[in-house]
């Protein structure tokens, strides 16, 4: 669906179901340079089971207009604006990678609005490799190829997508190259590199929180994910074996099972 935030048109997938204000809202926030499509194997389930789902395209990404936001703090405020724009008073947030920084910051800034927080491949800080950052800022497609290499675990490099026939390294590459690389990935990487408030923000989080981490994640290793979780009171941690940073595709079913249990327990759906 499309709606306006700060006069810019925003696209968000509703998981294939009409938006219904009576249902509780879950917002999914994608990682650097990517789009709402990374969430397709999680969003449709929640949309068909009593939730309003918004898998947003951040400004300047995917099908959303406007320019990419330059800091994690701006993105966090923008998520709050999204909640207001669709007429909800609260939401549950799910983030992946950069989306974890955004949702952690958002939850710390708007503690009364955010009811649960789910982090996938998250860390308190995501400092960028300087060469990778430079490639992305200079619009070099090699930045995307490197990201796709590092983002997939050894098993993920072979493929074996849960949806028959899809080859996820090429799919991810196509998503990240769908808009001008320097305007999406370049801006996002810089925002990640600049963000230093992750652990301080985490300390302020009081809502139920889940961290899903993966043993072969090179971009946000388990150690970093656990460190972030240690700053959040009562945070649950689930670790997936033999999986890389793109866990939401590499092990989509496992992620959905864990996410489903966590969200339905802590933020129940509208019963039909």
């Amino acid at each position, binding site marked *: 669906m499309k709606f306006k935030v700060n006069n810019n048109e925003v696209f968000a997938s509703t998981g*294939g179901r009409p938006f219904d204000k009576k249902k509780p809202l879950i917002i999914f926030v994608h990682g650097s340079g990517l789009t709402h*499509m990374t969430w*397709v194997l999680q969003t449709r389930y929640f949309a068909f089971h009593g939730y309003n789902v918004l898998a947003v395209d951040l400004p300047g990404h995917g099908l959303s207009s406007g320019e990419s936001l330059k800091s994690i703090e701006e993105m966090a405020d923008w998520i709050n604006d999204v909640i207001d724009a669709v007429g909800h008073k609260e939401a549950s947030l799910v983030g992946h990678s950069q989306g974890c920084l955004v949702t952690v910051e958002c939850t710390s800034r708007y503690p009364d609005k955010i009811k649960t927080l789910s982090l996938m491949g998250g860390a308190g800080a995501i400092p960028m490799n300087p060469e990778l950052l430079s490639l992305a800022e200079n619009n070099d497609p090699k930045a995307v*190829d490197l990201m796709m290499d590092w983002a997939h675990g050894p098993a993920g490099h072979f493929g*074996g997508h849960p949806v*028959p026939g899809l080859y996820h390294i*090429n799919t991810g590459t*196509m998503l990240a190259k769908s808009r001008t690389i320097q305007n999406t990935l370049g801006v996002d990487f810089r925002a990640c590199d600049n963000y230093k408030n992750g652990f301080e923000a985490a300390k302020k989080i009081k809502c139920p929180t889940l961290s899903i981490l993966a043993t072969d994640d090179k971009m946000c290793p388990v150690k970093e994910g656990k460190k972030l979780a240690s700053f959040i009171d009562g945070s649950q941690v689930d670790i997936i074996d033999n999986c890389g940073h793109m866990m939401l595709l590499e092990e989509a079913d496992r992620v959905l099972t864990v996410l489903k249990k966590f969200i339905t327990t802590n933020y129940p759906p509208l019963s039909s």
Partner: protein
Amino acid sequence: MSDKKKELKPNTYKFDTLSLHAGYQPHKNAGSRQVPIYQTTSYLFDDVDHAAALFNLERGGHIYSRISNPTVGVLEERVASLEGGTAALATSSGMSAIFLTVMTLCEAGDHLVVSSQLYGGTVNLFRLTLPKFGIKCTFVKPRDTEGFKKAIQNNTKGIFGELVGNPGNEIMNMPEIAKIAHDAGIPLMVDATYQTPYLCKPFEHGADIVIHSLTKWMAGHGSSMAGILVEGGKFDWMQNDKFPTMTKPYEGYHGLSFAEEFGPTAFTMKARAEGMRDFGPCLSPQNAWNVLQGIETLSVRMKKHCSNAEEMVKYLSNHESVAWVSHPSVPDHPDHELAKKLLPNGRGSMIAFGIKGGKDAGVAFINNVKLASHLANVGDTRTLVIHPASGTHSQMDEATLKFAGLSHDMIRLSVGIEDIDDIKNDFEIGFRAARKPRLVSNQ
């Protein structure tokens, strides 16, 4: 100690490795090193919630082998990875892959622009069968790049062609024709059966959908029928209002918009969810496995196919019984330069040549070769020959034959990977027999 910084390089797997491994993880299949053959029609649901989730495309998985099968899925991913595509859908034959592609793209009242140099069965599909479904086509000669542009109408939904035409070896200028298609807001669909991804990756030259008859070089051993459509993932279905079945809510899946939900894999998702569900040309797991065996050695075989073909081109070009030879490696082939650009790893193993003495000589040649097999296939490991005017294209009338660039003296040769001297010796037997009727009539 050097202070030179090591350049960052992606370490994603390369072609030969993907040919052997892509799409398959042994640890998820009881450690089986070889891809298992899932000879089953259907798959257990964990509970009713799981069943509903699969039917609603809420999660990945298998329901019924008409729609998807784990063995077939490995093949689909493997071919997608080799082509540089986002997704693929395997079918029971190359023809069903073309049909499914067209039916996913078009509705009654739509129009396609199609290359005139195609396999005879494909010509009949576009010329005679698709009009029954209300889909009309305009044929354009493959070298007439401007002709493709002129043939586009308001209701045109795509351009289709074989990269190297069957059987005359005319090459479409794929980058230019892709630009024409994209300027008109429509996709370019390319049948790249003759090339395989080892010789050409059409997505790198602007194609949007690639189709293969996997029966040919990809499987390579003449054992199994199979086809596939592969999606490049770059085409923007939402750029105009030409493709409502991709962009508008689809009643068959609770109002799903394929383009919104699946983006770079939307076409394949629709082809499977709608086309495979409703038409059902599924690939058997046994045949998928056979094709996978062939793909494991694709680059090794293609190198030998191409080197043997170039040897045969030299041999035929210098032979007294041969009137002409058509192969993109020949310097005076009209598409020689284009072939160097589009087919850098080799120009393929399909040769067309004219035999002196016309149709009678052609028939005598075909009837007398012993090693080369006379049959209606190409891309076998064995050398194959046929006389198109009396075989693959025999259902065409005289005018259609001429438009398709066929002549009565033409022999189509699919060069195998036998010892090259044995192929040449066999051809000598054929040529001797072909010369005999003429020697008799000259006396």
